[in-house]
């Protein structure tokens, strides 16, 4: 028993739909170009705005791969579109079956060999960039950083300078004629994380009991953003990265500042007392004081950072007060407990924290 279901498509709504789709497409392209291809550091961490050698290498490879894919898409999609238009059953057709073709060895050979060639080319292109990035040799003036991932913040140490800081990374800009890359060793204190600042490099994971590495070689000054890219627990979403690319002079000024022990001032003695008599000192380090905790970020130069809680909030008095009173208000589920302090203690404490330049 046969049933024929030849309902013809109404052409009018189809061409309207086509026009709408074309319009959406153009709007998308324009809007995306504005954000996606921005030059220089941007608050939108687009992979198409590279500003560092490894990111550039990846970018050029990605353009090549996308061009190849676009070519394949246009050819094959046209074939699909052509076949469904040209070979649709027309109302004028009789009921005879079309020629029953079972295959064609020549055609099969062609569309096997050509894809193999394409695949070989793509492989070679990829292998070249893998080698360039993973097996790169570093000049003697490379800045060495050790990044340790924590739930849910970043610890950065500069072993050569003896400094430890948190969440905001400073690196010097690199001149193309005298490259000064920054090489970052990636460790983890607890679970898996991933270091991803798209404009500066591809991402590499931070895995406990494993040493990974990544390097950046930025060409433009400014502030680059990124974040943890491997699910690490409840506040994975707010483990943000802020990288500041400084001139070599500014970078060394920053290093000098970070090397100093914490500023002391009698005006904030009350706050310091609150810090040191509550559990704060068990988790946090403030160099030059008795606070040597390693579980939480180093606070010695807290006020040199633009954000707190690994980028979750700007570093202002109000936010610091809120953070100390109730961390869950900013980063629900983070590992810093609310210390149950009364308002007087909180204000004194915040005053102390705000003195840590």
């Amino acid at each position, binding site marked *: 028993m046969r049933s024929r279901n030849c309902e013809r498509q109404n052409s009018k709504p189809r061409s309207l739909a086509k026009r709408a789709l074309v319009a959406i497409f153009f709007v998308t392209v324009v809007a995306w170009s504005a954000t996606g291809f921005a030059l220089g550091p941007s608050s939108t*961490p687009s992979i198409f705005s590279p500003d560092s050698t490894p990111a550039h290498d990846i970018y050029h490879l990605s353009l090549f791969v996308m061009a190849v894919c676009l070519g394949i898409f246009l050819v094959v999609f046209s074939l699909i579109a052509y076949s*469904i238009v040209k070979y649709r059953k027309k109302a004028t057709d009789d009921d005879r079956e079309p020629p029953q*073709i079972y*295959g064609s060895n020549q055609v099969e050979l062609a569309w096997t060999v050509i894809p193999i060639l394409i695949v070989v080319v793509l492989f070679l292109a990829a*292998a070249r960039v*893998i080698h360039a990035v993973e097996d790169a040799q570093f000049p003697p003036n490379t800045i060495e950083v050790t990044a340790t991932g924590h739930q849910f913040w970043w610890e950065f140490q500069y072993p050569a300078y003896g400094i430890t800081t948190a969440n905001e990374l400073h690196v010097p800009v690199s001149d193309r004629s005298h490259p000064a890359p920054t090489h970052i060793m990636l460790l983890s204190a607890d679970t898996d994380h991933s270091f991803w600042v798209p404009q500066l490099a591809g991402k590499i994971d931070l895995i406990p009991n494993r040493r990974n590495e990544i390097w950046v070689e930025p060409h433009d000054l400014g502030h680059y953003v990124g974040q943890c890219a491997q699910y690490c627990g409840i506040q994975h979403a707010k483990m943000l990265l802020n990288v500041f690319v400084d001139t070599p002079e500014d970078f060394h000024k920053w290093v000098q500042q970070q090397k100093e022990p914490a500023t002391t001032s009698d005006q904030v003695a009350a706050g310091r007392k609150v810090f040191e008599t509550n559990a704060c000192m068990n988790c946090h380090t403030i160099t030059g004081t008795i606070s040597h905790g390693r579980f939480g970020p180093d606070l010695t130069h807290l006020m040199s950072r633009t954000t707190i809680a690994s980028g979750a909030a700007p570093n202002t008095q109000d936010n610091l007060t809120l953070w100390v009173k109730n961390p869950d208000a900013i980063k629900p589920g983070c590992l810093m407990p609310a210390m149950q302090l009364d308002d007087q203690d909180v204000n004194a404490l915040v005053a102390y924290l705000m003195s840590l330049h």
Partner: protein
Amino acid sequence: MAEAQPMVPPLVIPQEREASRPFVQVLHDWIVTVDHKRLGIMYFSYGILALVIGGIEASIMRAQLARANNHLVSPEVFNQLFTMHGTTMIFFAAMPIVFGIANYLVPLMIGARDMAFPRLNAWGFWMTAFGGIILYFSFIGGFGLYGAGSAPDVGWFAYAPLTSPAFSVGHSTDYWTIGLLISGFGSIATGLNIMTTILCMRGPGMKLSRMPMLVWLYTVTAFLVLVAIGPLTAAQLMLLIDRFLGGHFFDTQAGGSAVIWMHFFWIFGHPEVYILVLPAFGVLSEVIPVFSRKPIFGYNIMVAATIAIGFISLSVWAHHMFTVGMTSYANAFFVASTSAIAVPTGIKIFNWIGTMWGGKITFTTAMLFSVAAVAQMLIAGLTGIMLATAPFDWQLANSYFVIAHFHYVILGVIVFSVFSAAYYWYPKVTGRMMSETLGKWHFWLFLIGFHMTFDFMHIPGLLGMPRRIYTYEASRGWETWNLIVSIGVIFQALGVLFWVFNVIKSYFKGRVAGSDPWDAWTLEWMTTSPPPDYNFAELPVATSRRPLWDLKHPEDPDWKYE
């Protein structure tokens, strides 16, 4: 060959509904059944139910992500949602649907009366069903880091050491592990059953070279099930040993390796996605020829490509681990193997085009879904190529680009193929035709919604948005794209509603289908709709790859050309 007695398609008998029996009796019959058709329906229905539940979980996530800094759900709930969404969809929606289609169709298509091991078949289904119940019991019975009622929140691939007792306090992770372990046993049983059925239970004349493409695809699928589920089972046993017996398989503090979990998981995980997609390819290879009125183009090459995909899929797993810091040689190897699998996959796409080429195509709803699936496979394959080039993957991995890519395959190819299969074989299963009008509404709504969501989803990934984040900063420039992505969900949900309504309405009001409503050629169309319990009054003889064509065209049978 000419000695074989031709089988005349049986008379069309209007399907009589069962005389009303007590509901308890009907329920009992379904629960104790070992009939492959009933088990197929049960598997499929379970899968669709899980699909809806997973879809609700996704909808809540999309509502949360539609705006920056949204507070619709807490991070605890969001993290449970994406874990449960992924786990539900892969293990309790897609796998049961795949097994359901196999169960119903494979014996019919090879001219058998049932699967090789009917009771094992039932056992496999109930194990899978039970596993899902255990997983979902966590919502009420789980006790995790955040108190009671805690579903697992470690992601569907449950990376170590996040799953260690130190970081996953309580039992929410154990519900994930044990639920999947149990359903894994069911999957292995079904894989075993499918393989044995295909090898041993083929009817008269059904040589391997005459099997329908769907059956070939399921042969390779069954092989992958047997080989690939084991690593997951092993890894989960190891995780249980770590969590309950103080073992150190993934305990980085004791010198254990987090990376080895990834290896074991993805050695399962990548073949798993081929377990899901190969049956979809099988559906396309059945539907497209019938509605193009031509045999599948290049049958032998299609079979060879399938086998190639099966084997190569076992060698590509670490493309999920390009960011883990493997050596450049290891990375390069996996670039090569992953890119290589594009070749047989591409061959399949070309052969489907070749099937349509020169045909007389009618755009029934089943055909619409199949053609869309082919076009979407093309796009998904190409984004896969992008991900296969490791340096590009160093940017794209763990971002919304990857989510867009794999949903393109799972939704755009697999679910579209499942819908195609539903429209195509519904008449066989129920004896009624589905409404083509409602079907077209379903198709267009779903197509628009799918593209709205998953085309645009690539963009936030390219703009640096990682996955598994419950919220994001407004300044990142991701908000507009996320909003469009979220709106697409509404269209998809509407489309599915049309389909569900169609399924129910057609069961009662649909036109009587008869045994062969589509003028098709494989053995399942040579029996009544629905088939009797024993499938065929007399086992049909397969005279070629298209036995029914031979009967309908005795002047020009296929066996002359094979």
